């Protein structure tokens, strides 16, 4: 039971990170490799807000959300919009977002140095809850609630709102969407902002979960995020949720039964099996080929 819960906590962070990843991919068909850098940056910013500004951790989370959204707008403006209409936009977008990620990480190094950073002692309430014989902290419950809440909110946004309709129209066909009066540039920018905001919250939650933030934390989760969105189905939001939870659980149980050195192999084994057996992922729809 304890393992199950631990798996759910870490899995919900994976899912939140991956949903931001897959949102941009599903709607805009671009892989934004600056996403992991936003994840890392927001962990540091969250710690900074609590440590320097003396804010409560509960206030820091929404601020980090806003921070992530702003960074997302910058990423779109600098790394993706200038490439619009180029035949190699796919490769070029990968590279430009890698470049931007490099700049963000360098700035973090300038501001915080290479060392691991932690939340100041006493930032979290240390109340522990008993759930079905397993111990959980309030922080862990918050992680789960915030992640699930944001994911439900995003799903409602995409399926119900006018903005969501615009997103789905662009996913279907950007040119047709533009002709029909969708402000493609604005919806694109908003998509990036939402995606990065989710990645940012995932970053600060991750830092809360393990109470540390490192420069390399983005890279570590990047590969898992990629695995999750493939397993769930590229561009599928429920797929990313299920994929993230499955990965979190699989890792926790792998550590228990196989050994911690093999934990990271789980993600890639799962990924490979899915790619071979069901390339469109668990929840993805197979695209009909265009002739």
């Amino acid at each position, binding site marked *: 039971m304890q393992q199950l819960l631990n798996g759910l906590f870490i899995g919900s962070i994976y899912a939140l990170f991956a949903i931001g990843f897959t949102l941009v991919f599903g709607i805009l068909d671009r892989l934004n490799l600056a996403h992991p850098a936003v994840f890392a940056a927001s962990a540091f910013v969250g710690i900074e807000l609590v440590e320097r500004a003396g804010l409560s951790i509960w206030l820091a989370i929404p601020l980090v959300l806003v921070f992530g959204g702003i960074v997302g707008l910058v990423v779109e403006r600098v790394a993706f919009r200038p490439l619009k209409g180029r035949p190699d936009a796919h490769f070029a977008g990968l590279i430009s977002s890698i470049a931007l990620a*490099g700049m963000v990480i360098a700035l973090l190094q300038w501001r915080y140095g290479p060392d691991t950073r932690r939340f100041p002692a006493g930032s979290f309430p240390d109340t522990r809850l008993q759930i079905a014989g397993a111990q959980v902290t309030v922080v862990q419950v918050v992680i789960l609630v915030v992640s699930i809440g944001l994911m439900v909110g995003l799903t409602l946004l995409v399926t119900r709102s006018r903005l969501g309709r615009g997103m789905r129209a662009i996913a279907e066909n950007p040119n047709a969407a533009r002709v029909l009066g969708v402000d493609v540039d604005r919806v694109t920018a908003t998509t990036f902002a939402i995606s990065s905001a989710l990645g940012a919250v995932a970053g600060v939650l991750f830092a809360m979960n393990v109470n540390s933030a490192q420069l390399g934390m983005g890279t570590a989760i990047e590969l898992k995020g990629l695995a999750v969105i493939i397993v769930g189905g590229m561009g599928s939001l429920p797929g990313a949720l299920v994929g993230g939870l499955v990965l979190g659980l699989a890792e926790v149980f792998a550590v228990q039964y196989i050994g911690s*050195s093999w934990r990271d192999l789980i993600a890639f084994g799962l990924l490979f099996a899915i790619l071979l057996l069901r*390339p469109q992922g668990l929840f993805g729809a197979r695209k009909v080929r265009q002739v």
Partner: protein
Amino acid sequence: MIAQYSATITFIALGAIFAYSFYAVLVAGQLSLGQAGFASVAAFSAVTLGPDPDQVGDLPALLVAIVIGMAVGAIAAVVLGLPTMHLRGVFLAIATLAFAEAVRILLLNQEWSGGAQGMSVPKIVTPAIAWIALAVVAYWFWRQGPSRYGRALAAIREDELAARAMGIDVGRYRLSAFVVAGAVAGLYGVLWAFFVRLIAPEDFGFSTAIDGLVTAVVGGSTMFLGPLLGSGFLTAIPELQRALGVEAGWIRPFLSSVLLLVVILFLPGGLASFIPRRVRMPPTVGEDFGSDHAGLATRLHQASGETVAELVGLSKEYGGVHAVRDVDLQIRSGEVVGLIGPNGAGKTTLVNMISGLVPPSSGRATVLGVTIGRTPAHRVAAAGVSRTFQHAKLFARLSALENVLVGAHLVSRPTFLRRMVWLTSARRDERESLEHAARCLRRVGLGDRATTRASSLSYGDQRRLEIARALAADPSLLILDEPAAGMNHVEASSLSTLIRSLAVDGLTILLIEHNVGLVLETCSRIVVLNFGEVIASGSPDEIAADPVVIEAYLGSAEEDPGGPPNGSIAAGTLADPTAGPDATKRV
């Protein structure tokens, strides 16, 4: 001075070799991140299996290790490539990345590879050895570029479907590019091992793969010097910063990233776009088409009147929608068959089935002796079917002439390996292909546009270039899917003249067209589709007078009382309102 920079010089060469392993697949439009895995497997196996330098001497030991490493890299690429070659774009990138990560984790947990500590390796590689290896690799890709093989890879990169329709076995070519990438990555792994003295699985992680990709793309992934330029540039930046006295730990990576961003945003072709591209032109000889095939394989065309294509009860269903239903059709050699029908009548679906791109749901069809449905598109093309597409699918970044050269894939001989050793026969074959391609271009009136990029041609010229490309395959059955779409009436009538002259040469032609006037004056027989079914078939005069056809096009007489009932479809579509005063300029 030199000694001070010898490590830098060697790293430039090693980085370039690694970047070439990305270039090898990027030229074919594949994004793979598995090269770090290939390099890792190759380095560890070569160091483990290779002979001891103390016993056989440094250089022999290194050479044996290189052979082992390249073989292991290539084998790993085959093993990974066979199950993953059907993946495209980002999916392939992530699958190969997963492979590389799996290799890293496996090696970390193995005894023989030393786990996280890695293995120590004697230092054998000198700057000279690294640069010689780089020269060999660069030579390979230099000779590959303008060969039949290199053009086929470029065609796959630009438009995979069109490449398949030109008879290129896309799966095989993609796999071969992947295997070359594996071998080159293996070479890099071995050289790296014998240069840095200590190898650990962490040397070949995700960031290594990203570095290789970045180097190749920054340098330019469509020009063979690209990876070398990229490696020089990216290795030099930190050195330059050091020389300028920039020391703070974060500034260097920051500036490198800024430069990377600038290059990718403002230099779409990478650094190699500074190098002017040489476009080869053929000598202007042989005005007539078809009579001079010396050096090119020629097909055996069906004798006039023999069956070219036979469709029996052919149907295609898309999720309950019958795009094509129960079509029976026979095409005989020498015919010019017109296929008309309103939008959505199933014309394009029908020719997609005939050219092997879409398998039928039911019914059977035999085209030039091959059975449709089980035969991959490139085999159908090899049997003698060549086509154009409704929306021009040209190889956008290649010149007009190169587009046509790809079209001649099936009738030209492979030249890559012979080009490697400068055989004159390869040069002769290339020249003959060029002449053949130039003849095809002149045949459609594009002789003076040979060096123009396909994407810069006007719309009408793009349509004609597609016809030239299809002609270059010396087809028995030529399928033209709406070739006159978007042409003004002057262009359309010259197209009609061209099609009839091709028919006189004995080509069998299946023409899909909305311009009914063009079809009526060009074709010997016309088939009319509506809602996926054949509603009429016959000579142009019969079709023009057929009340069923007129109804399908103009609606019934009651709905449209003003329209003249007979022969009006021809008159109506011939008067193209887009043919303004500028129409005469282009003649």
